[in-house]
C-alpha cells in the first residue's frame, strides 16, 4: 500500500453480543481513503459509522479483516503498539468535545502537543482556531462551538496524519457547525492531514473528496467527489 492509499479496509467485520443477541455491526467492509482526503462517512443511526471510526482509531479490534493506516496493518498491532499508533498518527474529535474541565483552552490543546515529536505551534493554532482570546478560559466558560474548536485543536496540535471526527457538529447549531467545518477544511488544506468525518449531515458530502455510506453494516456507497465545494458555499 502506498501513501496515496493512506487508509485501507479489507473485509472488515465487527459484531457485538453472542448467540441470538449477536448484532453484526460491520459486514465485510472494504474501502480505501487517499492521503490528504476529507472522507465523509454517512449512514443512519446504528449503521456502524462510529464502529468504523473506532476500528480505524484502534479503539476496538475488528472480528476479522485488515485495516492499514499509513502502511501499518493496525489490526495486527498489540495494545501497546496501538497506543503508539494513536500517539503518532491520530487526532480524535468527539461530538461532545470531552475537554478536560479543569484545564484552560490552551492547556487542553497542549495536552496532546506533549505527545508529539513534531507538534504544531500552539499559538498559531489558537489563532487559526479563533481561540486566542479565549485561551485562558476554562471549557465551561466558552460556548459549545468554541469547545469543539478546542477539541479540534487538541486533535491537530500533534500534527497527526489522520484525523477521525465523530459527529463533530452533532451538538452544534447551524452557524457554529459551518464555522467548524470551514475550520476543518482549512486545516485539511493547510496541514494536509487525512480526515474521516462521521456525520448524519448529508450536506457535508459537498465538502468531501470521498464519500462512504453505510447501511446495516454494509458499505453501500463508496464514491469520489470531483466537485468539492468550499464550506462557505454549502447550505443545509
Amino acid at each position, binding site marked *: 500500500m502506498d501513501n496515496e492509499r493512506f487508509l485501507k479496509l479489507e473485509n472488515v467485520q465487527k459484531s457485538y453480543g453472542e448467540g441470538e443477541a449477536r448484532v453484526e455491526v460491520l459486514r465485510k467492509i472494504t474501502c480505501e481513503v487517499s492521503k490528504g482526503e476529507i472522507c465523509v462517512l454517512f449512514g443512519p443511526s446504528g449503521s456502524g459509522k462510529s464502529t468504523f471510526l*473506532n476500528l480505524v*482509531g484502534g*479503539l*476496538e479490534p475488528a472480528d476479522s479483516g485488515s485495516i492499514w493506516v499509513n502502511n501499518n496493518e493496525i489490526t495486527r498491532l498489540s495494545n501497546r503498539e496501538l*497506543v*503508539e499508533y*494513536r*500517539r*503518532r498518527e*491520530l*487526532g*480524535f474529535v*468527539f461530538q*461532545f*468535545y*470531552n*475537554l*478536560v*474541565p*479543569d*484545564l484552560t483552552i490552551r*492547556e487542553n490543546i*497542549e*495536552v*496532546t*502537543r*506533549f*505527545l508529539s515529536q513534531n507538534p504544531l505551534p500552539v499559538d498559531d493554532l489558537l489563532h487559526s482556531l479563533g481561540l486566542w482570546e479565549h485561551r485562558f478560559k476554562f471549557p*465551561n466558560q466558552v460556548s*459549545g462551538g468554541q*469547545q469543539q474548536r478546542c477539541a479540534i485543536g*487538541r*486533535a491537530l496540535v*500533534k500534527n497527526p496524519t489522520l484525523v477521525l471526527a465523530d459527529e463533530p457538529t452533532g*451538538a452544534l447549531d447551524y452557524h457554529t457547525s459551518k464555522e467548524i467545518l470551514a475550520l476543518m477544511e482549512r486545516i485539511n488544506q493547510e496541514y494536509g492531514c487525512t480526515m474521516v468525518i462521521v456525520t448524519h449531515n448529508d450536506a457535508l458530502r459537498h465538502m468531501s473528496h470521498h464519500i462512504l455510506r453505510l447501511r446495516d453494516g454494509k458499505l453501500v456507497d463508496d464514491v469520489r467527489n470531483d466537485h468539492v465545494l468550499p464550506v462557505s458555499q454549502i447550505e443545509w
Partner: protein
Amino acid sequence: MHISPLARRLPRDFKNNLGKYLGIFGLLVMAVTFTSGFLVSAYSIADIAAGMREAYNIEDLYFVTMYEATDEALDAVEDLGARVYPNFSRDVPLSLGAANKSTDKSTAEAAADAAEGAGKGAAEGAGKDMLVRLYKNRDGSFDGVAYAQGRAPRAAGEVALDRVFCANHNLGLGDTVRIANEDFELVGICTLSDYQATYKNADDFMFNATTFTVAQLTNEEWERLVGDGATYRYSVLIDDRTMDLTGRTTFEEDLVDAVNDNGSTVSDLMDRESNIGLTFAADDVEGDSTMWETLMLVLIVIMAFVFVVLTDATIEQESAVIGTLLASGYRKRELVAHYMVLPTLIGLAGCTLGFALGNTLMAEPMQGLYYNSYSFPPYVATWHPRVLVITTVVPFCLLVVITLLGLLRKLGATPLQFLRGEASAKARRGGMRLPERLGFVARFRLRVFLRNLSHFVTLFFGIMFGSLLLLMGLALLPVVSINADLMADSVPAEHLYALKAPLKLDATQSERDAWAAMFELSTNPVYAGLDLDLLSDAVDKLEEMGVDLGDMPGLDGADADGSGKGSDKGDGAAKGAAGSSGASDGAAKDAGDATSNASEFTLPPQIEAMVEDSAKHRNWRADDPAIHALWKQVAQAAGIHLKGNDGDLTELIRTLDKFHVQLHALGDDEAKAAWELLQDLMEAAEDESVDLGSLKDPVNQTAIDDETLKQVEKFSVATLQVPRRIGDSTEAVTVYGIEPGSRYWTYADVRNGHIVAGEGLFSKCNVEPGESFTALDRSTNKTYELAVDDACNNGCDLNIYMSVDDFNKLFNKSADEFNGYASNVALPLDERYVASDLTPDKMRSMADQMQDSMGQIMTLIVCMVIPIYVVLIYLLTKTVIDRSARAISYMKVFGYRDREIDRLYMRTITFTVVFSLVVNIPILVELFKLLLTYMMADYSGNFVIELPMSLMAREVGIGFLTYLVVACLHMRAIRKVSLSLALKVQE
C-alpha cells in the same frame, strides 16, 4: 524531559475536589497523629521501664525480716551470690501544708481532681488520711532514684516525694508537707524505681498515688523519725542478673534457709516478677500498645477501603477525559502516573504531618496517660522504626498501592469504554427490567438504588467499619463495667484468704500461747544467742539415761506431760514447716525447736543452783567424779534415777551448762524474758489438749468463734501458666483445690475426680473440654498434664477447680495441706501469714481501676473516632450523592420540587444508611468481639463481651446524626450548583 501538561490541572483538581482530598488528608492526619503519638510514647515508656532495671539497679527480689537481720544472715545471703542492701522504711502520717506556694487548691480538691482526672492513681479518693513511706536517701547502688525536679534531701527538714503524688496534689519544690506532725520542705520530686506504681502493699489490688506516697530523707532524719519502728526490708541484687524465674526460686529458697539459719527470720519475700510495684506499669503500657496497634489495624482497613472507593469514584468521574486521552495516544502508565500524583502527595503530606503532630503535639497528652499515674523517670523519647512503619509508612504505602491497583484495574477498560462511560463492569451490563405493577416513584427509587448498588454496598461496608471504630470508643468502658460485676460475682466468698503458711484457726488458748512463745523465741534475734538445740540434746540424753521427764517435778509445778514428747515435737515442727512461705517455714522450724527444748528447763532447783554456782566460779570440770556424785545425789533427792555411764552424765552436764551460760549471757532482762517465754511454753504444755508436736503449722493468735469457724472452708491454690489461644504468651491460671460439695464454689462440681474450669479458660487459652493440655509452674519449671472435663461459672473465670485431694496429689503435697481459707465473715488472721485477701469489693475496685486506667484512653479513642467517622461517612456518601447530583439537577429542570426530589433520591440514600446502621449491628457485635479478643490478648484475664442494647442504640443514633449532618452538607452543595451548569457538564 517533558512534563505532562496534565500536571497543571493538579492544583485545580485539588481545589475542585477539596472536600475529597481534605477528607483523605484529615483521615490520615488524625489516624497517624493519634496512633503514632500514642505508640511513640508507649514504646518510649516501655523502653524506659525496661531499661530501669539496669539503669537503676532494681532489685531482683526483696525479703523482710521480723527484726533487723543479723550480719551473719546477710553475709550468708551474699555468699549465695548476691548483694543485699537494707531498704528499711516506715509508714507515717502525712498532711499537706496549707500555705504551699504551688498549691492553690485544697488538698481535698486536689485529691478529688486527681481522682477524677488522673484516674489511675486515684484509688482511694480524697479526704482520707495520707501515709508516706519513709526511706533513707539511696546512693544508686540499688533501687535508684530519678529526680524529676530538685535534689535529694541534704539537711534536716528536707524531703523528696514521689512525682505522681506531687502532681496529683499540685505540690512543687519549696512546698511544705507535714510528716509525722513535723514540717518538711519539699526539695525533690522523684521516682523511686521500686515504686513505679505506688502499691502500698504487694497484695493490694489497686495502686494509690493519692493518699499514699514514698519519700526520701537524710539518714539522720530517717533515723530520728523511724527509730526502731522500721520495716526491715532488704533489697537483693543477684550477681547473675540473667537468672530466670526457676533459678531465682531456688535461690530464694536458699536465701530463706540462709537467713533463718543465721539468727534471723524471713517474714516476707517477693520476687521481682511478682512485685506489682515493678511490673504493673510496664504491663499496662504493653497491654495498651496492643490495643492501639489493633486500632491502627482497623484504621488501616478503613483507610484502604476509603482509598478504593475514592479511586473508583475518580475514575468514573473522569471517564470521558480518560477515554479521550487514551484515544489521543496517552499511555496508561502516563495516566496512572497523573492520577497517582495527588493521592500520593496528599498521603505523604497527611502521613508526614500526622507523624510530626503525633511526636510533638500528642506526645505530652499521650505520655500523660501514663505519667499521670505511674512514677517513671523523666520521659525520653526513643526512636522506634516500628512506630514509623506501622503508623505512617504502612498507611502511606497502602494509600499508594491501593490507589495504584485501583487505577490499574479501572484503566483496564478500553478507551472506547471510557468514552462511553462504561469503564465499570456494571455500567456495561445495562439496566434491569422492573415490574410494571410498581408505581413510577417506586420504580424510580429502585432504579436509583440499582444504579448506585455498588456504591450502596460500599456505603454499607464503610458504615460497618466506621461504626466498628465508633463502637470501640463507646463500648469498651461498658464492657469493662459488665466484666467488673462478673469478676466480683466470680469471687465465691466474701473473703478468700491466700496464706503464706497453713494457719491453724481452731486452736485453744494454750496452743496459741505455746505457738506465740515458740515464735518469739525462734524469731527474735535477742534470743539468737540461745542455742535451743542444746536443750533438745539434753532431753535426748536424759531419755537415754532412763529419765522419764513426764514424772520429773519441774519448776513452778511444770508438768512434764508435754515435755516428754518434746524431741518428737522438734522433729515434727521441722518436718511440718513446709508452708508456702520460706519465712514461716523458718519461723515454724525454730519455734518447733524451742518447744522441744522447753522441758529440759524443768530441772530440779538443786541442779540449777549447782550449775549456777559452778558457772560462777568455773572451777569445775564436767567429768569430775565429784560433780557426777553431786548431780546423782541431787537427782536422787529429786526422785530422779539417772542411768547411763559417766560419759553420758558428763555430756549432759556440759550441754546444760552451755545453755545456761548462753541464757545468762543475754543480760538480765532478756534472760528473764526468755525464761518467761519458756515458762509460757511449759504452761501451755500442761494443758492436756495441747499436742505441741502437732503445732507444726503457725497458729492464729486471735480466737475465732465456733459459728465463724463452721463456715470457714479450707482450699489450696496454685498458679500455672497455660498457653493462650492468641500469640505465644501464657496466661497465669489459678488452680483451686476445693472441698467436694463446697458451700462456696457451688458452681464447681469436683466430686468423683471431676476437674472443671471457668468458661473464660476455654475462651482465652488453648484448652478444650476433655482434651489434655500442658501447664507450667514457672517457679519450679515443672510441667503438668491436665484435662478439664467441663466448663463452669462465667467467661470472666479462668480458674481450674479440682478436689483438694486431687490437688494435693497433682502437686505432690501432703494430704492435709492447704493454703487458703474461704469465709463469708472477715477473719482476724495474723497478717504475717496472709498473702492476700480477695473480696468481691476488691475485685470490683480492681475493675474500677481498670476502668480508670482505660478511661482516658477510651476518651481519647472516642475523640479520635468521631471525627474519623464523620469524615468517613462524608467521603462515602459524597460518592453516592455526587453521582446522583446531575440527575437531581435534571429533575429540578423538569420541574420537580426539592421535596419531591428528596423523595426520589435522598430517601433512597437515607434508607440505605439507616438499613446499614441497623443491619450492621449483629455484624458489628461479632467483629467487635473478635477485635476485642485480639486487643485484650496481652491483658491477664478474659473479657466477656456483652453489648447492651442501649449502647447499640446510641451507636446507631450517632451514626444517623452524623449522616444527617453530612447529607445536609451535600444537599447544600448540590442546590448551590446552577441548573444550566449541571446540564452543561453533561454535554
